[in-house]
């Protein structure tokens, strides 16, 4: 199988940091705040591989560092240490060694990001079609008719009525906004997609439809995805493999079925048994 992403000991510390930061935080200490210097260890020692067409779930409670890990990979934040290699066709990119321009270029062309809050992923001052056009224009498409037809195609693929593509996203329901966001993320047909709590806050039927859509896209385009969620249902439905995080550390990782059927760590056991 083709590897898409290799993450090696990724760490992110907010604050000055000290030698005992990593020794005195984590699930054993029930905290991610260093008692010596007060720094917050948002994520530490996160390592995983991701393969083509695979969906990796990152699960954990709020503040467990799951979003931080993804934000570092999408260059929204700079990690404190660690390495990540992105395998793009024949090329390899050492993500954190790239300069800011190269990082933005990669994020714009080869990655896609869908945020929990559509305000982060969409520009609410321009139409839904314009949002998709922006990404295509960044990609270098300079033909208006081409942009129109590709935006229409993407929106109908994500089940947004193409007749509404010239409306502002604020006129849309939450689910529709999320679909537009997914369409925008898919515009450049990226090999890697990050989904940060995409279904949180949507009602159940809409959630199911969005999850279906994500699965279909994965089947169709063989896109590798990292799904961040605190929802066990989402993990069960989407992810082939899962990492469970707590207080910034990965406490358990493996096949999703295995983790949900036979959790090893006490925290995961509690999480699974408490799920309705």
């Amino acid at each position, binding site marked *: 199988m083709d590897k898409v992403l290799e993450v090696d000991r990724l760490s992110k510390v907010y604050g000055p940091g000290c030698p005992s930061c990593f020794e005195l935080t984590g699930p054993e200490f029930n905290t991610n705040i260093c008692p010596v210097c007060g720094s917050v260890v948002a994520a530490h020692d996160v390592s995983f591989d991701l393969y083509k067409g695979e969906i990796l779930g990152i699960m954990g409670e709020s503040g467990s560092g799951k979003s931080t890990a993804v934000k570092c990979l999408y260059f929204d934040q700079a990690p404190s240490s660690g390495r990540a290699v992105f395998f793009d066709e024949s090329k390899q990119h050492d993500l954190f060694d790239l300069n*800011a*321009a190269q990082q*933005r*270029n990669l994020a714009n062309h080869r990655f896609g990001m869908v945020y929990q809050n559509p305000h982060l992923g969409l520009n609410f001052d*321009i*139409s839904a*079609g*314009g949002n998709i*056009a*922006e*990404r295509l*224009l*960044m990609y270098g498409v*300079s*033909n*208006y*008719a*081409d*942009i129109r037809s590709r935006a229409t195609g993407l929106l109908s693929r994500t089940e947004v009525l193409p007749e509404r593509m*010239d409306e502002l996203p604020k006129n849309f329901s939450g689910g529709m906004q999320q679909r537009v966001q997914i369409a925008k993320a898919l515009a450049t047909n990226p090999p890697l997609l990050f989904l940060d709590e995409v279904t949180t806050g949507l009602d159940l039927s809409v959630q199911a439809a969005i999850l279906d859509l994500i699965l279909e896209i994965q089947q169709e385009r063989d896109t590798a995805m990292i799904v961040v969620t605190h929802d066990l249902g989402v993990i069960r439905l989407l992810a082939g493999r899962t990492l469970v995080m707590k207080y910034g550390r990965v406490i358990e990782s493996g096949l999703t079925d295995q983790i949900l059927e036979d959790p090893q760590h006490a925290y995961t056991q509690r999480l699974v048994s408490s799920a309705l």
Partner: protein
Amino acid sequence: MSASYPFGFLDEYAKKEVRRSTLKAVALPGYQVPYSSREMPMGRGFGTGGLQLTLSLLGESETLKVIDQGSDDSVNAVNLRNFIEMTCEGINTTTNTDEADLIQSRHRIPEKPLREDQLIVLQVPYPDPLVLVEPSEDKRKILHGEADYSRLLVKLYEDIVKFDEITISHRYPTRINDYYVIDPSPIPRWDVPKLHQSRALILFGAGREKKIYAVPPYTKAEPLAFEDVPFRVEDFTDVSGKRRACNRCGCTTSFLDEFIDSKTGEKVYQCSDSDWCNGYLNSDETNNYASTKAMSQETENG
């Protein structure tokens, strides 16, 4: 009065700084070079950027032309010309485009093609074309640095979606030398093609925003557009499909201003460039036009 000021009003260090920034601007076509815009004895926004460029570049015995919206006689042009005459002893002023060494202009580039030995300074209110789409200057600098103008193109896209065409009438974003996009000051679209491969050096000075930028001679200047929705200039054809002519000189190739005749209430069109209009009026072609017009009026009256 003039004895109390150095030549060109600004002190030599100030002029030198402007010239240094100008050189940098020429070396980096389209890049907005910051400079320490001095306090001038007029409000910022009244052409202080262009004025500082003119004062720094004008030499004794050189000839200056000042235009405001195509006219040498409107308030802004007259006052700036008076000020420069007062503070630069020994310079000549003219209204004739041909005679000028340096032309300071607001909102127009003369109709007559400029020569290599001429220089045009444009007054700029808003130097950054990205200001419409990105409020933070820090982020705009990054966008310029990476030549990422996708958001401006999105604006054009939205225009076409809403109005079926690009509706920017002036300050049309233009890409210089395949990299930086500039705000070419509030010149009409009509003047934008004149930036392309211009023989004369074109300088832009923004006094309030403290920026200088340039389109050097023989440099590519390409208005932003889509492959299938090209840039176009103003269209002066009337309902019958005929190109409107200047009411005064009869020219059918110039940029026209629209007036309402105060007596008849009719729309009247006239050359915006007054020097061009005068020149055309005195040329052979127009003498014919004037005589036919006079004749037709006679027949109407008769």
